[in-house]
């Protein structure tokens, strides 16, 4: 009975008691949701256009951030370093297309999936070899990212919004919008959608798969860079970030592998729900629930919608 109270009543009482904390929680959830969404976005882009489940997205985040910081540490001015990093991500995309995707074209998904694992190893090794494995500071100031916080006195308390988080949210939404526009209205976008629908069809109308792949992986690289900067500025740039990137997977499940809006919504759902759960229900089970909560949510959603909330359902004919 008491247990039931703790599970079903008490959390909401708490929410009511401290609305400012609730607001703060929602905000935090929103922000981490945005970051999850950014990582997931990288997955979706690549999965849509090349059907590859790119496990390396996580390490690409770290790699991009490391390159940026490393270049700066090597004396390159911040903005130039940023530009160079973008260039590096492009080179990376080309290299991946040439050395990994092209030889593996038309192979089973699982094979491409494993290939991205190999890619992960290579990137981890290279990253640590070149930049060293120690945690680094993200050069937030030099990139004119705001620091400090806005304190809103509201709901009988205070809600603190980190300027950085606001920036993250804005940048994320801008990127998403930009991508949406690109997908909708540009020639490349149409090509991308064609490829997403069917590789053969795309080929038959004379779209070069290779170009598309480079573009998509490059785009994913940019997304990764943005994610890396944001997350790096919030904590540190270290290889532990790669693990956080795994969170993108339940996000993908919720959103469906193929839907960009899905990735965003999924990210927000995961971010919000896991924060709320950890804060109000976590204590009941000793906390630390964030490690698995998102995945369990994803699992439950899958039980009712085997293709995610937004993924297109494949009807099996025979």
């Amino acid at each position, binding site marked *: 009975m008491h247990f039931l109270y703790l599970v079903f009543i008490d959390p909401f009482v708490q929410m009511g008691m401290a609305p400012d904390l609730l607001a703060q929680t929602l905000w935090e959830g929103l922000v981490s949701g945005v970051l999850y969404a950014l990582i997931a976005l990288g997955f979706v882009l690549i999965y849509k256009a090349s059907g590859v489940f790119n496990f390396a997205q996580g390490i690409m985040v770290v790699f991009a951030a490391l390159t940026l910081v490393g270049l700066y540490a090597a004396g390159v001015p911040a903005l130039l370093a940023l530009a160079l990093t973008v260039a590096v991500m492009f080179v990376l995309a080309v290299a991946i297309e040439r050395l990994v995707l092209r030889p593996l074209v038309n192979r089973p998904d699982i094979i491409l999936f494993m290939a991205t694992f190999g890619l992960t190893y290579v990137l981890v090794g290279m990253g640590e070899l070149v930049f*060293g494995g120690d*945690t680094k500071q993200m050069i937030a100031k030099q990139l004119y990212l705001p620091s400090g916080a806005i304190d809103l006195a509201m709901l009988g308390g205070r809600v603190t919004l980190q300027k950085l988080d606001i920036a993250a949210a804005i940048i994320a939404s801008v990127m998403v919008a930009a991508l949406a526009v690109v997908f909708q209205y540009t020639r490349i976008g149409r090509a991308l959608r064609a490829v997403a629908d069917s590789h053969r069809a795309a080929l038959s109308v004379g779209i070069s798969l290779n170009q598309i792949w480079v573009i998509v992986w490059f785009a994913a690289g940019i997304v990764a860079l943005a994610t890396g900067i944001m997350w790096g500025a919030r904590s540190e740039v270290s290889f532990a970030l790669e*693990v*956080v990137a795994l969170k993108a997977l339940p996000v993908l499940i919720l959103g469906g592998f193929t839907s960009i809006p899905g990735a965003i919504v999924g990210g927000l759902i995961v971010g919000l729900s896991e924060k709320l759960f950890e*804060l109000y229900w976590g204590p009941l089970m000793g906390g630390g629930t964030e490690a698995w909560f998102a995945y369990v949510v994803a699992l439950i959603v899958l039980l009712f919608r085997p293709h995610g909330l937004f993924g297109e359902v494949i009807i099996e004919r025979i």
Partner: protein
Amino acid sequence: MSLRWTSLAACAALMIGLALPAFAADQLYIPLFSYRTGPFAGSGIPIADGMHDYLTMLNERDGGIGGVRLAIEECETGYDTKKGIECYEAVKGKNPVVVNPWSTGITLALIPKAAVDKVPILSMAYGLSASALGNTFPWIFNPPDTYWDGLSVLVKQIAATEGGFDKLKGKTIGFIYLDAPYGKEPIPLLQQLAAKYGFNVKLYPVAGAEMQNQSSQWLNVRRDRPNYMIMWGWGAMQPTAVKEAVKTGYPMAHFYSVWWPGEDDVRGAGPGAKGFRNLNWHGVGANFPALADIRKFVVDKGMSKVPKDKFGEELYDRGVYNSVLITEAIRVAQKLTKTKVVTGADVRRGLENLDLSAARWKEIGLPDFANSLALSCADHNGHGNLFVQEWDGAKWVKVSGDLSPMNDVVEPLLAAAASEYVGKNSGWPKRTEACDHTS
């Protein structure tokens, strides 16, 4: 087919690797388990540099110890137990004088093996607290303090700032820790002290995978408003925690940590981190003759991996401290056995008779670097005094006098833990190693 050859080659290579005479017999083989890779590399690199550079310095300056050169070999563990065990198996054949696992997980895996292979394990201020009891764990050493010592000192300090233990009643102490055996170890003691002094404890676990994603833990902190925070963190968890604390506007002067955060872990949080406090037992900085020698003989000759600006930082100096323990133990062993090229067994004796007085610290060019430390057969830890240092925005400043651990509470815990360990590991060997009373 190809694979058969691969594996044949593999075996062959390994055989060769084993067949090769490990190192010339007139050297002291000191393997250093380090982790310059993986999620914890941030903490691992400076420590590895410090350990390595001090030993190299001895080689360069004095031609080793007592005229015997030190064969220093790093083995990369990546803080991963599996690799750690591999490293141990790889080095144990080359009769190492001592092994520093530098990971609680690896230490725990090695503890049973040590007694069998006659290799002393030096887990400096980490590992299994109970291994402080030399009569149960003759081969394991964890000076100068156990985590329980550390926690008791922190509670002491908090009580002091509050103005007496009686003031702790009704206060709340939050404990944010890496959700791993290492982080969980202090909890029993914390709860015991809570019961004794009537303060409340709030636990905030941080999963290894979530180290850089702590906002919810700190939301909890904000809700529970603990009067003090104590952190048992490692690697990327620490800078993230400090940053989050700053974000939440938690009073830094009330944010304490065990001795693992280094400068890099707080620097990132900017001026907000001013006032953050952690434990320490040794000097920080490069203003010691010995470190000057390291700079002269090692760093300037480009034999070190340490970046110029990181030289003499806290964790680097801690690596140095670790190496001092090794080398001093070797010296004692040499004295005891009257032989130059000592074995692991000898160094075990050396460690048990280790006596680092203030005078001795001065002799080796580290005056007032650390408190005196004396080990014995029964006491493999020393439970030395600790002090609290504060981050002033640029460097660590000592803000407390020497604080002694609450031996009265820690000792029974150690005894209990040791007997529990023995009880659960049926057939745990009784101590047979003789005990010399030179100290």
